[in-house]
């Protein structure tokens, strides 16, 4: 046995460092503001919601005794017992469906999917049972399905997927991908309190790499509202998840070159906060769309389409999108680095657009 177990499954080439979000929320007086990781933020949201509401419970593979593959629920079973921190059989369709049933009977299940990649194994329950229920019979399905998504950890095509594009194209769902600890905590609380099925992806690259001072009180961050992660004048970058941090890094580099970049962190993909995007573009007149999701028919497509159809007259240059190529996400470091938008590449592309 190892003495100090590493925190995640894979030992990999040292992954790129990430800058953390530069605009921590102000902390109200009297609150105990603490700097915590993204992972801890998720964990705290779950813990506090379980304390607040008996109807909230957690289910998934290895969430109980083990505390979750990424240790999000470490210590939970000791506090809340095995019924509310339920180790399920390996059966995504089974426990997604069970969560839907429990939710419709008044519970507030939060389902952990061990890697976001495995959400495909319970796909039909989400898109056909949960997503269409309220539309058909006005019955709420207050379930959250959350899990670690996306790349950057050299984890390969089955452990690095960004499935949000599929779900964002599924009416009836809400889709959330926070980029910072503050948002992760506040949005997860909102998701749990929401009466709709919420698909909540946590770019696992950020889990232990991003820290932030979060408010100490019981705050929430509303679903459906984007955030200006950084204000700027020359150009708007519209992005979310891990790419928020790369955009901010690029913005700092470009600042030194006299280019002022606004960075919009979408936070919620469905419903999409069109207003914040359009308002920003009305000021900057230039739009740069950046995602970790693959290009074709992906999240970036809707962002470009929204801007093209709704802000056509405001634009002072082409809309540029930067997103991975249309392939599965590869394993090997050079391949993954080539595949994911890197800060240098972002800088170069933004510079071109700024100069247009």
């Amino acid at each position, binding site marked *: 046995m190892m003495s100090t177990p590493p925190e995640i499954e894979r030992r990999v080439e040292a992954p790129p460092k990430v800058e953390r979000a530069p605009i921590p929320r102000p902390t109200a007086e009297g609150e105990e503001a603490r700097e915590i990781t993204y992972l801890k933020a998720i964990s705290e949201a779950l813990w506090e919601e379980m304390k607040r509401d008996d109807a909230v419970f957690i289910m998934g593979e290895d969430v109980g005794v083990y505390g979750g593959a990424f240790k999000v629920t470490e210590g939970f079973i000791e506090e809340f017992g095995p019924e509310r921190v339920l180790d399920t059989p390996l059966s995504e369709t089974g426990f997604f469906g069970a969560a839907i*049933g429990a939710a419709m009977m008044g519970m507030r299940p939060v389902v952990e999917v061990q890697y976001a990649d495995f959400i495909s194994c319970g796909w039909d329950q989400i898109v056909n049972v949960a997503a269409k229920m309220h539309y058909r*019979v*006005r019955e709420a399905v207050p379930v959250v399905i959350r899990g670690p998504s996306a790349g950057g950890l050299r984890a390969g095509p089955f452990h690095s997927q960004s499935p949000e594009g599929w779900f964002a194209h599924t009416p009836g769902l809400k889709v959330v991908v926070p980029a910072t600890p503050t948002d992760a905590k506040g949005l997860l609380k909102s998701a749990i309190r929401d009466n709709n099925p919420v698909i909540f992806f946590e770019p696992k690259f950020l889990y232990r790499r991003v820290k932030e001072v979060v408010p100490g009180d019981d705050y929430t961050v509303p679903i459906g509202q984007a955030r200006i992660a950084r204000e700027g004048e020359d150009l708007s970058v519209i992005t979310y998840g891990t790419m928020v941090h790369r955009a901010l890094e690029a913005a700092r580099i470009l600042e030194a070159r006299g280019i002022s970049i606004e960075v919009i962190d979408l936070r919620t993909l469905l419903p999409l906060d069109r207003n914040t995007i359009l308002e920003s573009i009305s000021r900057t007149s230039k739009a740069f769309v950046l995602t970790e999701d693959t290009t074709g028919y992906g999240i970036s497509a809707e962002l470009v389409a929204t801007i093209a159809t709704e802000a056509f007259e405001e634009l002072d240059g082409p809309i540029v999108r930067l997103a991975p190529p249309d392939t599965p996400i590869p394993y090997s470091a050079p391949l993954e680095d080539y595949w994911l938008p890197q800060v240098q590449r972002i800088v170069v592309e933004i510079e071109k657009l700024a100069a247009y």
Partner: protein
Amino acid sequence: MSALDLRQDQKLEIYRYMKLARAIEERLEILYKQGRPVGAIYLGWGQEAIEVTASYALEEGDVLAVTHRDMAAHLPRGLTARMVFAQHYAKATSPTRGKGEDNYFGDLKRGVFATVSMLPDFYPVIAGAGLAFKMRREPRVGMAYCGDGATNRAEFHEGVNFAAVERCPCVFIIVNNQYAYSTPNEKESLLANLADRASAYGIPGYTVDGNDVLAIWPIIKEAVERARSGEGPTLIEGKTMRMRGHAGHDPMKYVSREKLDEWEARDPIKRFEEHLFNQGIISEKGKNEVDEGIKAKIEDAVKFAEESPYPKGEEAVDDVYAA
């Protein structure tokens, strides 16, 4: 007399529901053949004994989820003929307000989930409903139906196993009507009795004559009470026959006349009616009263459906999200 014996009044109720189900489907078939806009009709004609008796065993507070052919199972829970026809006619007065198709409805206020088409997606959902009851220590039971064909799907396996491991208070019903659309049992699985699948989950399984109310009742009732007392789920297969095509358009050429005749002789309503007559529970007069009552209900329901307004086009964009 134990709960495992049906009282006379219960027998009469079951009888009425079975006849009402048959009458609704007779009318639906006529409307369909007349070219009325009733959507698809998936008739459970011939299956009424298992359909009605199983859900009749539930009590207030229990929940039910069925599939496309189990309209009859809705009736003991209080869903009405008006609902059925309004739903088929896609009217604003229907349980889905015109949003969902034909037989895909329910009413959670009456403890019935709104059926989905993907088979049998409600198996795990019912397991989860049971889980909620168990967690809150409520003496409530969840029951899910599916067909013989549907037992070969993911949700059957994962749903029943989940319920078994968590000892959810659930009863899983297999309505084995010999066919999945045109596909006979033998092409769906090698088993003679689908209830044997219970042994894959370590739970009890029973196969019962699905056309015999009196045989079905004690098995179901016991399973419901077993669930309610915390002993976990049961799997029950009712053997019956789909006496009509898969849907209105299907002339069912793949079923031999002999086979149909054989099952016709075992018609569950006729059989139960004989029992009621033999036991003096019903008389010719009583039967006629039932028939008249049902006839009136059907007329009322069809009229209601036909006269109900359609939803307005712009309602298409409402209700995607719960508030």
